């Protein structure tokens, strides 16, 4: 086990109260196998107790620690420092975009949670509906219904931060929410259809696929939005040809 130490510079975005934002510099000695969140936490613990940042589980199940690291959305508890910089390098750490900032690196995710509730995304569901990746089959397919698992989406907001449409258009529901709606399917669900089949719903997406790129949880929101569109088109065609649904 190597005990390599790197010297990295952390450039952290600070925003408090009514003051204008600025960046603070901290020089840290780190183990490159540590996670970015560990470095941020050390800055708080030993250098600046006023640093405000969100975190909870430290193992990618709560979705709280999303930040922008060197201009890319990351879930900082599972990103080793060696993946984002080198010895002597810099880590620029900023809050997620497209959410209001509470302070420093902490953002208010209320809108995401509220919308996920609106589209009725289920937080727990049968394994048969959300199987873990192929090649790892801990149970026989027939038994998958017997198990309940927490859904893949951890509501971390990275996709919304990375989405160029969310940047340009505040009312856009955003990838997480649309992917969340897709969980149900649209058949016979006219309320959900009305919510997502509109200008600020699935049709506002321009297929940049930044959401799929940054999602830490295998949700593939971009694909799900396309599936939602196909489901909506099927509904419209059915409706056109006289189905009374």
């Amino acid at each position, binding site marked *: 086990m190597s005990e390599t130490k790197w010297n990295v510079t952390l450039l952290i975005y600070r925003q408090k109260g009514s003051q204008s934002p600025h960046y603070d510099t901290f020089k840290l000695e780190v183990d490159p196998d540590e996670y970015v969140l560990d470095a941020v936490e050390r800055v708080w613990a030993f250098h600046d107790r006023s640093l405000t940042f969100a*975190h909870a589980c430290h193992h990618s199940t709560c979705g709280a620690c999303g930040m922008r690291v060197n201009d890319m959305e990351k879930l900082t508890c599972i990103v080793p420092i060696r993946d984002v910089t080198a010895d002597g390098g810099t880590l620029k750490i900023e809050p997620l975009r497209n959410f209001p900032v509470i*302070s420093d690196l902490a953002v208010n995710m209320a809108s995401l949670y509220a919308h996920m509730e609106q589209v009725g995304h289920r937080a727990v569901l049968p394994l048969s509906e959300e199987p873990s990746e192929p090649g790892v089959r801990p149970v026989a397919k027939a038994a998958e219904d017997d198990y309940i698992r927490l859904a893949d989406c951890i509501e971390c907001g990275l996709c919304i931060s990375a989405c160029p449409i969310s940047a340009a258009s505040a009312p856009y529901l955003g990838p997480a929410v649309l992917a969340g709606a897709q969980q149900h399917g649209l058949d016979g669900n006219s309320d959900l259809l009305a919510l997502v089949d509109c200008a600020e719903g699935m049709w506002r997406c321009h297929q940049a696929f930044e959401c799929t790129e940054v999602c830490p949880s295998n949700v593939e929101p971009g694909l799900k939005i396309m599936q939602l569109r196909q489901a909506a088109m099927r509904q419209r065609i059915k409706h056109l040809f006289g189905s009374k649904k």
Partner: protein
Amino acid sequence: MSKPHVIIIGAGFTGVATAHDLALRGFDVTVVERGPFVNGTSGRTHGLLHSGGRYCVNDQESAIECIDENIILRKIVPQVIEPNGGLFVALDESDLAYAERFAKGCEECHIPYEKLSGEQALKLEPNLNPAVKLAYSIPDGTFDPLRLALAFAATAKSNGAKFHLYTEVTGLLLDGKGNVTGVKVWKRATGEKEEMHADVVVNATGAWAGQITEMAGANVPVKPTPGVMVAYDQRLVNRAINRLCKPSDGDIIVPQRRLAVVGTTSFDAEDVNYIPVFKDQVQLMLERGAELVPAIRRAKQRGAFMASRPLVGSGTSGRSIARTFKCFDHKESDNVDCFVTITGGKATTLRMMAEKTADVVCHKLGISTECVTKETPLLSYREFYALPN
């Protein structure tokens, strides 16, 4: 008559559950937390919804608390739980020697259990070590730490509780006679300082309890005892897999979403605010985890982290301190009135810890109310954000 005001310091599991209980009993509740929800010990649990099996031999008081609360939580907050049960797995002679005591312990603690052969266990969990000789199935589960806390917080908020996150208590307000009358806070999001008054202050800061009680010249025998957890990026099992032995390092694997989390160790620490991850402990988790589920060696490490258990009592070895909780009324222990500390315990018993704490608070204020949290289903955790502030 206006409602009595309680300030709860800490929005970990104990803080949010106590806020929920007191709000239901008609109190005006304010929770102050220096970070976001469950950013301390609570967030970093591996998420095991204990059946009590781990404690049924050596710490039966804890075991009974666990099984009772396990059943209650499955009823009141199923939206955050993977209820798939667990196995205690015997791999060698030493494990087999423990089996009889384990079964007896389960009986004595009314933990439902079923004995399975090695083949039956492998059928349920194909990734188990093929050398498994025997297994006991018990009603363990997995819960999502943040969402469990948010569900309590959402319900409390719907009943009037107020939550101030990123608000750090820097001191306690004291009357001339050393009793607590409120808290001094530093609102870290803006830099402002403020004073808040209360009829009772509840210290629910877990491993940090001693730092808060010091502010009133009081003491609690809390021993922060960290342990490591390592998360791997495959859902290799669908149930909690426990080693059939007395509590020891690396004796459990907990599934959650597409992860498998191996835990844990136990050692002393001085600084509770930051404990580094020790690579030798991570390696130990890999070794011990691979004994239970060999496929872990082929899985990629996704995360590694440390959390400080708040162990109560001033014994020497961490694992021999009982895992149950204690509520301190500082009037009795330190002659500081209007100040209560709740610490110790484990995540699974959060509701019960809150009930006991709320009982103490009510008793102090001469209020007689019933606890109804056993039967009250919690709101969706997302309601915390959907409800207006």
